[in-house]
């Protein structure tokens, strides 16, 4: 078996809504190798969560249609039977969510919820599972784990709850961890602690990781590869170094320019990408970014650009990325070195 863990191939996700069918994820492909951390980046509403939840098939399938493939160790999750899916979830692939305040069941102790995952997938007695739950809490840096294990979620802070979620997600040693904006809902100081924790544990467990975020600072800190999404599509894919040193797509360039510099002046004016992500029933005919792009031409507005390979490991979806690069990128502010960024 190759070291390829997950391969998402031409994934499309359609929702049947009251106002007809919308396509939230449109032809997304990317892959994750064992031990690799892939960042999935984009503004809110770009389809990051839908992509992530498709991997575990967590979307309500009464209203959801999938196309394409999601290969996990060469087997297509989208063709799994329900029983296979149950064995996969929490065991081979785990997920942590954005809002730790509402992600744990309020009427059961945190220990109970970790033990539940352990008993589902591992051949342990109740007592062994309880001990393992304490070990997992200790591993995630929760003080007094023997006491915390018997507490209810509402007795813990947001940061502690996210540690509990991590302990639960990792309890069965998954091969792949999907973290959907795991720090977005937390205080800034707690954010970096949780990121450090995920980084350490992913090395310790040698997991593949998908780190979903709208914050490129997070990407700089933990990822090796980045997939940039816009309105349900991948618009650029590259290594972290390339993304930060020479972003190709105007959208990626805009995202990078809108991060505050650590060494920049305090009142530094931040770049903002004009406009908003259109809704799913107003998808532009040509390039989806055209209404917000300063380089848009008639070609962009009428013809859809493809995701093309560039150099050996890069991909970009833009008609004019070469000329844009020659001109120096968005607002002529090309960055030539990997900037340190705030997380």
């Amino acid at each position, binding site marked *: 078996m190759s070291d390829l863990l997950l391969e998402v191939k031409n994934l499309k996700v359609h929702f049947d809504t009251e106002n007809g069918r919308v396509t939230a994820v449109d032809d997304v492909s990317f892959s994750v190798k064992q031990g690799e951390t892939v960042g999935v980046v984009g503004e809110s509403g770009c389809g990051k969560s839908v992509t992530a*939840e498709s991997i*575990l098939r*967590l979307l309500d399938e009464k209203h959801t249609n999938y196309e394409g493939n999601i290969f996990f160790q060469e087997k297509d999750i989208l063709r799994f039977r*329900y029983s296979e899916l*149950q*064995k*996969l*979830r*929490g*065991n081979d692939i*785990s*997920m942590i*969510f954005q*809002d730790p305040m*509402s*992600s*744990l*069941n*309020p*009427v059961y102790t945190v220990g109970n919820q970790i033990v*539940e*995952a352990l008993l*589902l*997938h591992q051949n342990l007695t109740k007592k062994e599972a309880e001990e393992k739950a304490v070990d997992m809490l200790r591993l995630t840096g929760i003080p007094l784990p023997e006491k915390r294990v018997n507490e*209810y979620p*509402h*007795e813990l802070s947001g940061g502690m709850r996210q540690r509990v*979620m991590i302990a*639960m997600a990792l309890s069965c040693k998954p091969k792949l961890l999907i973290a959907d904006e795991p720090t977005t809902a937390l205080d800034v100081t707690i954010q970096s602690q949780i990121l450090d924790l995920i980084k350490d544990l992913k090395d310790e467990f040698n997991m593949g990781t998908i780190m979903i975020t709208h914050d490129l600072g997070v990407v700089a800190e933990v990822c090796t590869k980045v997939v940039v999404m816009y309105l349900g599509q991948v618009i650029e894919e590259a290594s972290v170094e390339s993304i930060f040193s020479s972003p190709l797509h105007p959208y990626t360039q805009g995202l990078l320019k809108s991060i505050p510099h650590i060494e920049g002046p305090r009142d530094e004016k931040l770049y903002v990408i004009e406009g908003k992500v259109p809704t799913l029933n107003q998808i532009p005919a040509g390039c989806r970014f055209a209404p917000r792009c300063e380089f848009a031409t008639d070609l962009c507005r009428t013809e859809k650009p493809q995701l093309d390979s560039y150099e050996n490991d890069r991909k970009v979806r833009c008609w004019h990325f070469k000329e844009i690069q020659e001109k120096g990128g968005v607002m002529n502010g090309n960055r030539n070195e990997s900037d340190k960024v705030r997380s």
Partner: protein
Amino acid sequence: MKGYILRRLLSLIPVLFVVAVVVFLLMHITPGDPAAVILGPEASPDEIAELRENLGLNRPVTEQFVSWFGGVLQGDLGNSIFMKQPVLQAFFEHLGPTLSLAIMAQILAIVVAIPLGILAAKFRGSFLDQTFMGISLLGISIPSFLLGLFLILLVGVELKWLPVAGYKPLNDGLWNHIKYLILPAIALGSMQAALIARMTRSSMLDVLNANYIKTARSKGVKESFIVIKHTLRNAFIPILTIIGHTFGTLVAGAAVVETVFNIPGIGQLIINSVERRDFAVIQGSVLLIAVSYVLINLVIDLLYGVIDPRVRLGRK
């Protein structure tokens, strides 16, 4: 916890007072001289005047109230003029049938409604869901006496499966006791069942959308356990509220159903007493019902703590 219960019990006093004032006033503005009603049309004016004096009806209203409420606070609800026995005794003699009926209606409602509500939520939008919800709408809108009469005609008179009227105490055997209560309990409990089923459905739907349900799925928890372990317990909190708060309505509704099925319960006691202008009984019964209403709600609130740890700790 003890402090909490004590505080709740103390809060009974103002409730009692307000209820006492209201019933008392209602009784005294009802037209008709109780002494005349009690003695019947053939009584002479002298006899009526004498009875008025004996009943204390000639004293000022405030004085009558103070002497009655003073007795209530000491546990003395007075005596029934008509039945010649203490009100408390008359009340408890009639309480058994009413409680049996109300509890049976409640149990029937819970046992039928909660599973239906769960199924409707789980298969939301399906034919099953629509059928259950249609029936529940019917359940809410049919008056209990009408349903009672219908059941008597169909099940009692036509099919002859069950007795149509009367009451047998528990001493006559459990089945005998239950047999007489099935039809009245269905008549009484159907609205309750409809309410509980609808609440169960909407509460389950809310919880099924919660983030922690997604978490549970992402761990590989089976769908049946998602419903039983992760959803039901959370959904039960609002269901419990509905059950608790409508139990009082059930007891009140029992009065009507008791009349239809000729069951000698509190409802009949109160209705008969109103006809006889037996003030002490009416006032005492209404007060006792108010007290039990408050006590039932207290029990329900304590049950929340059992289900929901957030409530438990908040009260330490």
